[in-house]
């Protein structure tokens, strides 16, 4: 259809669009809204899912066992990192280790640190047993230069301090030896230390800290479990809850459901908006498309008279529609991405969901999906004008019986 030394089809499309700026701006706005809302809901839910995957991956555990009274607190540690302190009344650690299907088990203790002023970070301290731990040890394997010795801590990505410097909790000085990668979960607000150092800190807290900290010995807040390869984590989790009374288990799927529950309101709003905008837009866009085609009837008849096939004029109408859909979608997706990125802190804290910006591939797929939907809507809205064109005679638009 194009002609190198003559006139191009794309130029004709562009000129026709430029001729109707106000109507096109309104159409572009509609497509931007559709694509933007759909993209946003996908962006948020994928961001939450990828964050959870990263967090659970970082944790290295298939199952987290917590006291049944503190199930929600346990989820909070993982999801948002709001500091909390709780313990098993009866450790049950040895029993858990003995359950068939449990490959590794490691206890952890959760201690909330103090708030000093408005601007101190809320920090969740997690004490680990270096002998059995498989959370931090995995990270240490990836970072062989780092050793975790006395009073050494490894901090989450949200904690403000550089490796080599110090942090003080309950009056006790710790040395920062490493920073974990961002996961978007509560892990980012956590610091990891050894059980022994936590006990020392608690012991000194009466003299050195604002408030005394009491940590019972030989007790844990949670037990992280790694399951034997080939075993079903759900089955092992059920077995743990059955054999060790007073426990509840948290699994990644379960967490995702919890997160989805919180996200549901937002994604429902966004997806609902996308559907509503689509439903309203299709007839509206169809009307605009029909009006435009009506105005263009004469021009189309002229093109037909000059030798344009029905296919050509069909493509002309569709190309104009698709161009508007693509431009609108790109604008909508671009603006949505921009707002979601710059407001991500606000979103995650107000929705209380884990969130990281999805991978580039995911964003591309989300954008592609939203774009395809817009193009499909554009095509649908153009059905009637195209139908009219293909059924009419070329000279109809010019007027009959002119002379």
């Amino acid at each position, binding site marked *: *259809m*194009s*002609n190198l*030394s*003559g*006139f*191009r*089809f794309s*130029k*004709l499309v562009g*000129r*026709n669009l*430029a*001729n109707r700026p106000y109507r096109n701006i309104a159409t572009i706005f509609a497509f931007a809204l559709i694509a933007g809302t759909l993209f946003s809901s996908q962006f948020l839910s994928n961001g939450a899912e990828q964050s959870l995957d990263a967090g659970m991956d970082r944790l290295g555990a298939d199952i987290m066992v917590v006291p049944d009274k503190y199930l929600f607190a346990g989820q909070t540690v993982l999801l948002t990192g709001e500091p909390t302190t709780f313990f098993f009344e009866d450790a049950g650690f040895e029993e858990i280790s003995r359950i068939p299907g449990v490959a590794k088990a490691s206890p952890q203790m959760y201690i909330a640190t103090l708030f000093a002023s408005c601007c101190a970070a809320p920090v969740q301290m997690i004490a680990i047993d270096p002998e059995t731990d498989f959370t931090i040890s995995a990270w240490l394997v990836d970072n062989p230069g780092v050793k975790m010795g006395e009073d050494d801590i490894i901090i989450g990505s949200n904690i403000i301090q550089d490796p080599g410097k110090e942090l003080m909790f309950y009056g006790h000085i710790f040395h920062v030896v490493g920073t974990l990668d961002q996961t978007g979960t509560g892990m980012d607000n956590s610091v990891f230390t050894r059980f022994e150092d936590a006990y020392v800190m608690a012991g000194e807290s009466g003299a050195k800290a604002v408030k005394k900290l009491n940590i019972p010995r030989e007790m844990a807040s949670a037990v992280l479990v790694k399951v034997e390869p080939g075993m079903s984590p759900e089955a092992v989790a059920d077995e743990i809850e059955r054999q060790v009374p007073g426990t509840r288990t948290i699994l990644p799927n379960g967490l995702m459901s919890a997160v989805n529950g919180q996200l549901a309101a937002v994604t429902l709003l966004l997806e609902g908006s996308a559907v509503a905008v689509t439903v309203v837009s299709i007839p509206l866009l169809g009307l605009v498309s029909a009006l435009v085609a009506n105005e263009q009837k*004469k*021009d189309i008849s*002229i*093109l*037909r*008279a*000059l*030798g*344009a*096939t*029905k*296919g*050509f004029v069909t493509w002309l109408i569709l190309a104009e529609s698709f161009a508007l859909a693509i431009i609108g979608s790109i604008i909508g997706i671009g603006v949505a991405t921009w707002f979601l990125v710059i407001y991500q802190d606000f979103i995650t804290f107000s929705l209380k969901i884990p969130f990281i910006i999805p991978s580039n591939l995911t964003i591309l797929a989300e954008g592609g999906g939203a774009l395809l939907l817009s193009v499909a809507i554009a095509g649908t809205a153009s059905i009637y004008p195209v139908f009219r064109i293909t059924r009419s*005679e*070329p*000279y109809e638009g*010019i007027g*009959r*019986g*002119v*002379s």
Partner: protein
Amino acid sequence: MIEAIGVTKTYRTGSSEVRAVDNAHLHVHSGEFILILGRSGSGKSTLLGMLAGLIRPSAGTVRFKGMDIGILSDDRISEIRAREIGFIFQFSGLLPTITVLENVLVPSLFYRSGDNCRSRALDLLDTVGLSERTAAYPRTLSSGEMKRAAIARALINTPSVLIADEPTGDLDIDTEFEIMELFSRLNREGMTVVMVTHNPDLVPYATRTLGMDRGMLSERFLSLHPGNGSSTGTGNPP
């Protein structure tokens, strides 16, 4: 070249029926310059539309180079229009969103008659006296200028037949003369011309003149030599 056999076009408006063309017979031979004279409303434009395959006859057949265009596919007819027929509308019919030069180049979207469309378009615009207005948009042109651009557009693909509906309608006398000389030259070079007009002064340019009145076509008996000022008469040829 083109044959119209008993073509009729009837339009229905509500309960009434209008016969724009009534049982017309016309055989256009290759190389002829045919002039069809008639007043407004006589059905000239409708007849031209049927000859170009733009309007489907209610009855009768139209043949182009022996092919019955009534049974051809729409794509095939479009191809014939693009390659073979240069059509000039009564109202000039320029596309408002593109420039004069781009308008002239539009037919090249459907059929490329060569690699130098652009220079050919510029030559044609120069021939019709629009070399200064190639970048102008139709809304800034006078009706005469628009008509001249439409003429250039009809010729861009070097068609074998030119079908023109009142091509000199909006032109001043001097320009009309120039355009008719152009048509005459093209005709001598082999292009068939079928032209509709209400101006009897143009008869001498034609090799054959017909009349149209209330949808009915009739041969105007005339000497076949153009420009010799012979008197005209209406009726069937001997």
